[in-house]
């Protein structure tokens, strides 16, 4: 039995003096990469999956539009709704919203504005098509159907 006691002689402490440095490094990383969300999303957002994903080159030229079933179903019902900024809108208000978003950009960049459509998987094409019709009228014709990456099928 005495044989087993010997290994206690090995020093087992983890050096903790460098821990604050490590933690600070992580802290700075997250501080730099974090971006506080300006709007809280009030619709369900289970994005569909796709493989042919493209990145948006310039964040400043992107306007976000969310479609999905409202999270507070007792207040807003179960039908998918359109959310921009912090409010629900109807398809007919889309033109007005596009013009507001375009006004924020420089004049020469306005036709490059992309609308990122964050649509829930379970939403139906009907409401999306209504929005698209309005976007065509508003001349905001670059669209991105926001999706998550999926591994290619085998």
């Amino acid at each position: 039995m005495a044989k087993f006691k010997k290994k206690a002689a090995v020093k087992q402490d983890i050096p903790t003096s460098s821990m604050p440095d490590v933690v600070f490094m992580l802290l700075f990383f997250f501080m730099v990469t974090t971006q506080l969300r300006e709007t809280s999303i009030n619709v369900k957002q289970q994005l569909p999956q796709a493989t042919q994903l493209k990145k948006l080159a310039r964040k400043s030229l992107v306007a976000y539009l969310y479609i999905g079933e409202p999270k507070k179903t007792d207040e807003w019902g179960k039908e998918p709704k359109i959310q921009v900024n912090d409010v629900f809108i109807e398809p007919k208000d889309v033109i007005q919203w596009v013009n507001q978003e375009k006004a924020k950009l420089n004049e020469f960049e306005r036709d490059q504005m992309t609308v990122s459509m964050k649509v829930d998987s379970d939403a139906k094409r009907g409401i999306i098509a209504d929005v698209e019709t309005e976007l065509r009228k508003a001349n905001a014709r670059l669209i991105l159907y926001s999706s998550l990456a999926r591994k290619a099928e085998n």
Partner: protein
Amino acid sequence: MPRPVPEIPNASMADIAFLLLTFFLVTTNVANDKGLSIQLPPPPEALPQDLEIKIQERNLFKIQINSFDNILVEGDPYSGTMTELTSRIKKFVMNYKSDPESSDTPKDAIVSFKTDRGTSHKKFVGVLDACQAAYNEIYSERAGVTVKRWLELSSDLGDPDNRKLYDIGRGRLPEGGVEIPMNISIAEPTKVGGK
């Protein structure tokens, strides 16, 4: 008389840093701005009223989805995988008159994609993904890069090297236009089912 040197206790520094770290870990959301990009057609009012375009049946590859998410490809019910659909579209686009029932040239070939108002967005994105995959595979083979690289470079055309590969892949013609345009037509949904 020597003054006592003021000292800040630094034992709690790690705790403070951990607290801040936890805060940023929780609030951070890695920007997810990826997706399928398309360009919508101009509004119907902007087009000439008497515009009539005649397209040969063989130059059209028709995909329809109903409100139950059932797919119809070229008029027949389809139950295969999306990968198979991608290779069928590829074959259709790159036909070059070898099959008289299929497209004449890639330029004439059109993938027509029609949904119903009741079709789910999930299915729509899945099929649109398969259509774009077909074109992106053709482009990347021509440019001699992987599909992944192709998607990266087509997202960043400011770089002259990317631009060059992009033009090779799509076959840019000197008189303007491209040899293999991505002709995916998304028709307005029907109102048979759903709301």
